[in-house]
């Protein structure tokens, strides 16, 4: 137990900060994923074959390739790509991107592919009459989307989004390979310096279990809130 004490002698405070980092990366990644889903869901639902193809390639490629490979692509290729763009604008110094940004972006793109599928499924299972009714009523496009489709879509999407959240949360353990100090990386450091890997990795497992358990509780509450009236 003294291994977990706070202050200089134990790893308690370090692991607490690392847990915060895991939560921060997961939320950022989930949010970036939503942005991607916002772009790609309409593409997948569009009538144009070409736009469909773009949307489908995104979800197929990302969901068919290991997360770790995507992370390596961003980790090794990220700063190169940014430097290339910067050089077009005449900036030729070395740019290093922070591990937090690379990590949340990589996980965000992965999470976005899953979210896109969830949103697509949710929109497709909304009754066709709803679309027609709002057209007949002459609602403007934004009103139609935000007031008619979105609330119904969210209700249908939340149970599946909670799965995406779980996947995203667990995927953040993989960005420890880039050196970002989240739960996994901190346990690795602690295990290395105390020579007690069994304890620290088991403790990491407990931390992840707690995160998944409490986030499920929270999401269940949201689910109840959004299905009021059904």
């Amino acid at each position, binding site marked *: 137990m003294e291994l977990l004490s706070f202050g200089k002698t134990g790893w308690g405070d370090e692991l607490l900060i690392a847990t915060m980092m895991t939560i921060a990366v997961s939320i950022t990644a989930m949010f970036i994923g939503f942005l991607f889903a916002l772009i790609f869901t309409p593409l997948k639902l569009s009538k144009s074959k070409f736009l469909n193809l773009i949307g489908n390639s995104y979800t197929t490629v990302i969901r068919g390739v290991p997360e770790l490979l995507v992370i390596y692509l961003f980790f*090794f290729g990220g700063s190169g790509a940014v430097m290339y763009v910067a050089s077009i604008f005449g900036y030729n110094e070395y740019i290093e991107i922070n591990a937090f940004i690379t990590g949340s972006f990589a996980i965000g793109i992965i999470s976005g592919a899953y979210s896109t599928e969830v949103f697509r499924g949710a929109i497709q299972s909304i009754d066709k009459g709803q679309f027609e009714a709002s057209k007949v009523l002459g609602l403007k496009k934004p009103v139609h989307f935000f007031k008619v489709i979105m609330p119904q879509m969210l209700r249908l999407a939340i149970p599946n989004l909670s799965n995406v959240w779980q996947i995203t949360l667990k995927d953040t353990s993989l960005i420890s390979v880039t050196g970002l100090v989240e739960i996994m990386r901190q346990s690795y450091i602690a295990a290395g310096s105390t020579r007690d*890997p069994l304890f620290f990795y088991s403790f990491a497992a407990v931390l992840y279990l707690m995160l998944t358990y409490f986030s499920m509780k929270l999401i269940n509450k949201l689910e109840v809130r959004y299905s009021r009236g059904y």
Partner: protein
Amino acid sequence: MDFELMINSLPKLLNATFITLKLLTASLIFGLFIGLFFAIIRLNKNPIINKFAYVYSYVFRGTPLLVQIFIIYFGLGQIEYLRSTALWVILKEPYWCAIIAFSLNTGAYTSEILRSAFQTIKPGMIEAGQSLGISSKIIFYKIQIPIAIRQSLPAYGNEIILMMKGTSLASTVTLMDLTGVAKYIISTTFKPIEVFIVAGGIYLFMTFIIHNVIKFLEKKYSY
């Protein structure tokens, strides 16, 4: 775009694909048995026994696969007692540690898939068997299992694809699987995009094959 590198790295990556496939098949076979075992236990009426199966699947599905591999590979070696037993021959090999971790992980997911498949079997099917005087053992093997397998095919297909992606984590315990070799080539040539295209292409090809095989099986066993 460095096409020469892409062509040169292809044989190395294809070679590494064999390790990925070996890891995948071994874990799927062990995982299927573990999954079936826990699915049956989960349906047991004894609350202690089915709670045990529930906790097993909850823990393995609630923690990242990476933690599971690290506990088995780095953690178990710390127990002095284990080092002196015959088990140590297996546990000191990263290859077997990876397979153990993958099997236990996919076993947890498989048990959930099979459990829900067993639960969706209509009671009428079992009652029909009983009224024909078929013994409960034969009902289980000849009626419940075939229906459950058919029922769980789509979800199990997804699980196979997830597991294939999961085998990439073997590279974190020094195994040179497809991802491990891809990382090695990237870190020596600093050409991440080219290597990603080739390695990602191989993974996508495997996904495509698995997807179609499952689709074929679904059609074959549809009723």
